[in-house]
């Protein structure tokens, strides 16, 4: 019934949703959505590097995003500029440099739209391997740092005082962010990855009363978004990324009705 590429896209998208669900919750809790944008914009540089040196896209995006994250941390320590200005500086300059470099790579035919907004046709069986092994690793590491990360999200000093080493958890989380962007870039596109992180999590916030439940609903929301989005992408011949994000938005809007109800119940 399905063409082979569609099954591949579906399996890839499901793998991605399992990872963006829990990470997206932390992005919302820690107010990191602009940080996610910065990392994903810098991913364009990673893509050009992959084409130039014939590397795996996910791996080179992961490396470049990690480097950008490190540069950001250094800039935060060494300059007096506010955090959002630094993020904007890095996000747009790395996007610009990436686009300029693409201009020089005349020997390769680029599908810019595919890079920016995702392309389900581009998912290969190798990508599935990267997404599922990478995704499993990300989730295992997140599980290991869950307690210190959550505790320091609630209160940094409490976590530090009671010996949980929040700085280490934060550094590891930054690397996980780079990794999730690396595995989802082909599918969702670099302009929309942050949407995949925060919209299902925002939807989940509306219907959860504990951190664990919010993670669970965020995963379910992501899965539904991927499945609905990909089917409509196939049906209406739209890009995969925007279709998935639009599906996530619809779920978010539906979740608002639940809030209304619970407010009514309280009154």
């Amino acid at each position, binding site marked *: 019934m399905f063409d082979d590429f569609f099954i591949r896209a579906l399996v890839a998208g499901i793998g991605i949703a399992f990872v963006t669900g829990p990470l997206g919750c932390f992005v919302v*809790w820690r*107010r990191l959505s602009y940080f996610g944008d910065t990392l994903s914009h810098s991913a364009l540089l990673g893509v050009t590097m992959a084409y130039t040196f014939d590397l795996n896209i996910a791996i080179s995006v992961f490396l470049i995003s990690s480097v950008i994250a490190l540069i950001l941390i250094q800039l935060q320590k060494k300059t007096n500029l506010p955090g959002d200005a630094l993020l904007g500086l890095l996000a747009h300059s790395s996007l610009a440099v990436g686009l300029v470099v693409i201009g020089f790579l005349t020997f390769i035919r680029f599908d810019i739209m595919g890079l920016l907004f995702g392309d389900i046709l581009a998912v290969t069986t190798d990508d599935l391997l990267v997404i599922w092994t990478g995704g499993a690793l990300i989730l295992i590491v997140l599980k290991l740092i869950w307690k210190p990360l959550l*505790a320091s999200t609630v209160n940094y*000093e409490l976590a530090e*005082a*009671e010996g949980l080493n929040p700085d280490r958890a934060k550094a590891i989380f930054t690397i996980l962010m780079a990794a999730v962007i690396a595995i989802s870039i082909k599918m969702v596109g670099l302009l929309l990855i942050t949407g995949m992180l925060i919209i299902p999590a925002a939807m989940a916030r509306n219907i959860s*009363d*504990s*951190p664990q439940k919010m993670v669970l609903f965020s995963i379910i929301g992501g899965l539904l978004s991927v499945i609905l989005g990909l089917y409509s992408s196939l049906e209406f011949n739209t890009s995969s990324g925007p279709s998935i994000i639009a599906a996530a938005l619809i779920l978010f809007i539906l979740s608002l009705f639940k809030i209304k109800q619970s407010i009514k119940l309280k009154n």
Partner: protein
Amino acid sequence: MNSNNNILVKLNNAGFRQSEKWLVEGVSLTVEKGKIVTLIGPNGSGKSTTAKIALGIYKNIEGTVEKYTTKVGYVPQKISIDWTLPIRVYDFMLLTETIEDSAIDEALSLTGVIHLKNKNLGSLSGGEFQRVLIARAISKKPELLVLDEPVQGVDYTGEIALYELIKKISDTLNCGILLISHDLHMVMTATDHVVCLNGHVCCSGSPIDVAKNNEYKALFGEKASQILTTYEHKHDHVHSDEGEIKKN
């Protein structure tokens, strides 16, 4: 190094400077098992800073901190829960350590908030939240308990009960407590050792010794010390209005 193995944390001439301004300096104190050490002093005198130095939250400090325990419970002075994080009292109790449900219930009952167990943390009143904070800190049965104004916002009868609880915990768990409090009555009756701060250590000793101290009187007024004594002794310095120390 630790000759007395009752010592939990020891500050040696410790201080902390933030952008060229000393928040507190030259603090030496020791918290031992089963003892309550109380920090008193006016606003901005470095009480919370001293507690954070003892806890290891501040890293680039002057002097040294020797810490002989990792089982620490902390009630911070101020904590705000972001609306974006849905978290119940129950989840909050498990924040830094996995503990048994029975221990959670016991701690929440001791501080009188067991009925709030499944409530969202953001929906609690100030006093209720303080009780939850104390319950969380004691439920992990710490060796060192650091309480930064633990009863702020708690009603009067609750305040007395909570201080009695703190005293009881120090006895039953044999844990050392570093307490920051404005309640001088509590300080005078339940504390083993008082450190009076005003950017540095003004005076320290047993509650009675401190109450007799002139600097204590200068900081808290005659009334505060009249409870106990009219004894006076000599001082080598006074404080100007700007908080500077002037030698006599």
